[in-house]
């Protein structure tokens, strides 16, 4: 099988915040593969290490154990074939929307003229051509996410990593953006690794949903193929009987982990309360 991204028995260990001599294992022995053109979502309780896993895939974080392979090649340093859409605000406030989209193209020494054309093209695709010369503070939360999306996709990455990119948006804007992301993805089938805490979003968008256990040493405990037909409308598909069936199936696995994660947050030592 031809994988775009392979996380092979990854473990991530950190020095504990509370005790300098204690080692905290955020991710424990996780194997996760994404095929070319596959949309994979990862769900898990809050604080279980989903973002850590994505940072490993991006090459921003070196795993303590295990190997990352990108199109079969072991990853060293940054993953240059991946685009990363962050959860938090990542745009440069002193640049306009257009200049932000051009940023990556400038880094790759593409001439000003063609960078301008490409960036404008992508701004049009995300519906922001009229806002090209607006500064970031002049844009709404949803528009900023669109700029981020254009900024990531204008470089035409083979792998797209998304870390709860839409979690800060209101529900209507969010469903709109979900449909737009699916629409763009369906035209250029890239490998997508999508992190979310929202099971509805995960099922509605993905080909496959991977459920992570609560931390420490988080690892996959469920892998579900979502065989709903495409193209999908994320707002409507939620009433589909097979969607509801899948949701029940995954939720039974996820529920216990969410409760476990919640109890851990309440207990000060970070240990699991039985």
């Amino acid at each position, binding site marked *: 099988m031809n994988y775009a991204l392979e996380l092979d028995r990854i473990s991530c260990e950190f020095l504990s915040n509370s005790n300098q001599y204690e080692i905290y294992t955020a991710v424990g022995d996780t194997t996760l593969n994404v095929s070319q053109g596959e949309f994979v979502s990862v769900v898990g309780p809050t604080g279980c290490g989903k973002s850590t896993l994505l940072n490993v895939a991006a090459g*921003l974080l070196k795993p303590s154990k295990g190997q990352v392979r990108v199109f079969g090649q072991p990853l060293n340093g*940054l993953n*240059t074939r991946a685009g990363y859409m962050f959860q938090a*605000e990542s745009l440069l406030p002193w640049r306009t929307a257009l200049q932000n989209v051009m940023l990556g193209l*400038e*880094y790759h020494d593409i001439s000003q003229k063609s960078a301008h054309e490409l960036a404008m093209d992508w701004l049009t695709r995300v519906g922001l051509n009229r806002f090209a010369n607006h*500064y*970031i*503070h002049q844009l709404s939360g949803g528009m900023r996410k669109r700029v981020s999306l254009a900024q990531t996709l204008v*470089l035409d990455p083979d792998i797209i990593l998304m870390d709860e990119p839409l979690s800060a948006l209101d529900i209507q804007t969010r469903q709109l953006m979900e449909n737009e992301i699916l629409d763009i993805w369906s035209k250029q089938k890239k490998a997508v690794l999508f992190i979310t805490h929202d099971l509805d979003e995960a099922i509605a968008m993905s080909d496959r949903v991977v459920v992570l256990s609560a931390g420490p040493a988080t690892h996959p405990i469920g892998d579900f193929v979502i065989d709903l037909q495409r193209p999908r409308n994320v707002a409507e598909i939620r009433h589909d009987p097979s969607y509801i069936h899948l949701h029940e199936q995954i939720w039974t696995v996820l529920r216990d982990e969410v409760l476990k994660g919640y109890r851990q947050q309440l207990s000060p030592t970070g240990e699991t309360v039985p």
Partner: protein
Amino acid sequence: MSEHRNKQTSLVPTRKNMLRVWQLLLGLAFIALWSLVAQNEQWAFFLGQPQAVLIRVIEWFVPVTFAPNEWISTGLHGTGEIYVHLGVTLLETVLAFLIGTSLGLGAGLWLALSPMTSELLNPYIKGLNSMPRVILAPIFCLWFGLGIWSKVALAVTLVFFVVFFNVYQGVKEVNPVILANAKMLGANSSKLLKTVYLPSATSWVFSSLHSSVGLAFVGAVVGEYLGSARGVGYLILQAEGTFDVNTVFAGIVVLTICALILDAVVGKVEKRLMRWQQPSSTNNSL
């Protein structure tokens, strides 16, 4: 009808207009009180006289001479000499501001991006910053002579640290998500400096611009006051030597007005260059 309404709204005393009126009245009341107290000759020796201060300012700016008349009992001996002195002081201020800001920006960037150097130099920077740097003036006089450069050097030491600490802190606190994003988009370290660190540091320079221009001015005047042959500080020093308190106050008035103008210019420049920043709420007057 609508015209009538428009007129009415403009004539209605708004809260802001009323505030301006009260501010003006307060200033006039202060001058009236000053003028009243200055009727007493002994008091006038120490406090000066507002009329005499005004006449001195006019003499400095307008080279017109006429004999005493019923309006001005002392007559007017306009020299127009202030322009040279003011020019020197402003030149020193601008030079000190430019040199101090560029040095502060460079050093701030360098130390923020090189933690080893920063840790090595840390105690010395703290020491230099806590030192009362005005005391360096005699040394600068020794090194650079009585011309403008000793004043520029003094003012630079004042400006440098304000800008330096602002830039250092600003670069240290660049949003890590923005950095990670730029790296993922393919930035190498020189492009990272150009597109992320430098603009971010510049915005911190601008936030310290008002205080650094003010300090450049202070440095220039204090330097002149401690030893010079030109400049507004020199004029004040001369007047003090002859107990001419009116001239001292005239110098203070001129300096204050200059400082206000400089501040307004900085405000304009800032507004132009910081267009990308979210305008903060402006109704927090005092």
